[in-house]
C-alpha cells in the first residue's frame, strides 16, 4: 500500500538501487538461503495484524499495534546498505527513529542494550520448517542503547513509497546504515531493553566471522573475503565496473565514529 512520509535531511546523494533489485535480491533466511528465495517464498506471509512488544528494563512496557506505529511521524531516508557479503545498495526507506519508540517506553537507568526478535511462523516461513534449517530461530539482534538512540537508527515500515514488501521484513524492521545488513533484523515482534549484551544470530552461528558490533569496516576483512570493496547492485551490469571501495562506517563515520571512540574496532568487529 502507498505510504506517505516527509523528506528528511538523510538523503545519500547516490543513484538509487532499482526497486526491482531492492525487492527481489536480498537475504531473509526465514524464507530460504538464496537471494531470490525471499521474494519467491514470502507471498503467504501475513504482515497484518501485527504487534510489537517492547519490554525489559523500561518504565512503561507496552505492546504496540502496527497502526499506532504507522501513525508516528514517518520520514523518508535514503541510506546506503552494505551487506556483509560485500554487495551494497542505496535504498529509500520510510520509517521513524528507533529513539522515538524507545522514548515512549521510558528506558530505565540500568538499561544498556536493546535486544530485537523476529517472528517465528514455520507455517508461513518455509526456512523455519523442514529438515534443513540454516539458523536457530527466532532470529535475534541487538544494539547498545546509545547506538539504538542514534538518529540514524530507524525502524522502517516502508520502502520506495510503499509499505514494506514481505520479503524485505514486513511490517517493521530495523535499519542501521553504518552496520552490515544482517544487523537490520526483519519482521520484529519484540524489543527488550537489557543490562547485558544480547545475543545476535549470526554471531551465535559463527562468532569468528560475525561480531556483535558488525560496523562496516573496510580495514577488517571477513575471514573468508575482503571487505575493502563492494559490488553496487544494479549498476554496471555484466561488463561495467560496479565495484567500489567500501567506506568506514559505510560512509557515516562523521555521524557515528564518536560512538566508538577509544574502542579497538579490530577486536570489536
Amino acid at each position, binding site marked *: 500500500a502507498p505510504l506517505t512520509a516527509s523528506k528528511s535531511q538523510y538523503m545519500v546523494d547516490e543513484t538509487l538501487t532499482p526497486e526491482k*533489485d531492492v525487492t*527481489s*535480491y536480498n537475504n531473509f*533466511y526465514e524464507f530460504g*538461503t538464496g*537471494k*531470490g528465495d525471499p521474494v519467491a517464498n514470502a507471498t503467504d506471509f501475513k504482515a497484518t495484524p501485527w504487534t510489537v512488544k517492547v519490554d525489559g528494563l523500561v518504565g512503561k512496557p507496552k505492546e504496540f499495534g502496527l497502526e499506532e506505529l504507522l501513525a508516528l511521524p514517518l520520514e523518508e531516508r535514503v541510506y546506503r546498505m552494505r551487506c556483509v*557479503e560485500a*554487495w551494497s545498495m542505496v535504498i529509500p526507506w520510510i520509517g521513524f527513529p528507533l529513539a522515538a519508540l524507545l522514548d515512549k517506553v521510558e528506558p530505565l537507568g540500568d538499561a544498556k542494550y536493546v535486544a530485537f526478535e523476529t517472528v517465528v511462523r514455520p507455517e508461513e516461513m518455509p526456512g523455519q520448517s523442514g529438515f*534443513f534449517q*540454516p*539458523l536457530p530461530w527466532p532470529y535475534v539482534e541487538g544494539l547498545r542503547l546509545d547506538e539504538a538512540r542514534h538518529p540514524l537508527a530507524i525502524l522502517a515500515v516502508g520502502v520506495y513509497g510503499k509499505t514494506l514488501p514481505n520479503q524485505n521484513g514486513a511490517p517493521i524492521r530495523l535499519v542501521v546504515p553504518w552496520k552490515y545488513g544482517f544487523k537490520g533484523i526483519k519482521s520484529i515482534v519484540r524489543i527488550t531493553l537489557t543490562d547485558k549484551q544480547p545475543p545476535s544470530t549470526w554471531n551465535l*552461528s*559463527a562468532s569468528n566471522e560475525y561480531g556483535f558490533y558488525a560496523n562496516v569496516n573496510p580495514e577488517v*576483512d571477513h*575471514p*573468508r*573475503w*575482503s571487505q*575493502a*570493496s563492494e*559490488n553496487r*547492485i*544494479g549498476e554496471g*551490469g*555484466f*561488463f561495467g*565496473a*560496479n*565495484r567500489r571501495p567500501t567506506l568506514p562506517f559505510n560512509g557515516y563515520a562523521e555521524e557515528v565514529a564518536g560512538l566508538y571512540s577509544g574502542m579497538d574496532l579490530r577486536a570489536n568487529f
Partner: protein
Amino acid sequence: MAGLPALPRKYHAASIWLLYAVGLLPAAYGFYLGATGRLPGNPVKEFEHLLGLWALRFLVLALAISPIRDLFGINWVRYRRALGLLAFWYVLMHFLTYMVLDQYLNFAAIITDIAKRPFITIGMAAFVMLIPLALTSNNWSIRKLGPRWVRLHKLVYIIAACGALHFAMAVKVVGPEQWLYIVLVLLLLAYRLIRPMLRGKKRARPQATSVRGQERSA
C-alpha cells in the same frame, strides 16, 4: 546386466561431440542472460557461481563413470575424457569470470584472496591440478605416459574433494546443496577404496583389460 540398448559404434564419436556441445550450453546460456541484463541482482556472481557449480557436476559425473561400469555393467568410459575436460573448461571460465568480470584484473586483490582465503586457496589448488590433467588428456599423452598417466590422473580425486570443499566453504551456511556434493564426492572416493575388495570377490569374472590407459580404472 546392461539394461540399456548399446549405442551403435558408428555413433560413438558423434555422441562425444554432442556431449561437448550440450555440456557447454549452461555456460553459453548463462553468459547470454548476463550479457543481456537478464540475470537478477548481482549478475557477475550469479554467472561465476553457475560456472563453478557445473564444474563440480562434471567432475562428479567423470568420477561416476567407472563405478557405473563396474556396478551396472554400462560402459560410458568413452565419455569420461569429455566430462573431465568440460570440468576443466568450467573451472577455467569460473576463474576467468572471477578475475576479469568480478575483480577487473586487480591482481593485488586476487593474489591476496588466493593467499589469504582458505576457500579460494583450495579452489585455486584444484584449478592448478586440473591443468596437467587437461594437457595430458590426449591419446598421445596416454600412450607416452603409460602407467604414469593413470597415477597422474588420480589427482582428480583430490581435485573433486577440493571442489566440494571450496563450494561448502564459500557459503555462509552449509546447506543441502553443498552437502549433496560433499556426500557424492565422498561416496565416489570411498568406492575407489573398497573397489579392490569388490574385485577380489569377483575374481571369477574375466577382467576387462585394455591397452589404452583411458580405459583403465582411474
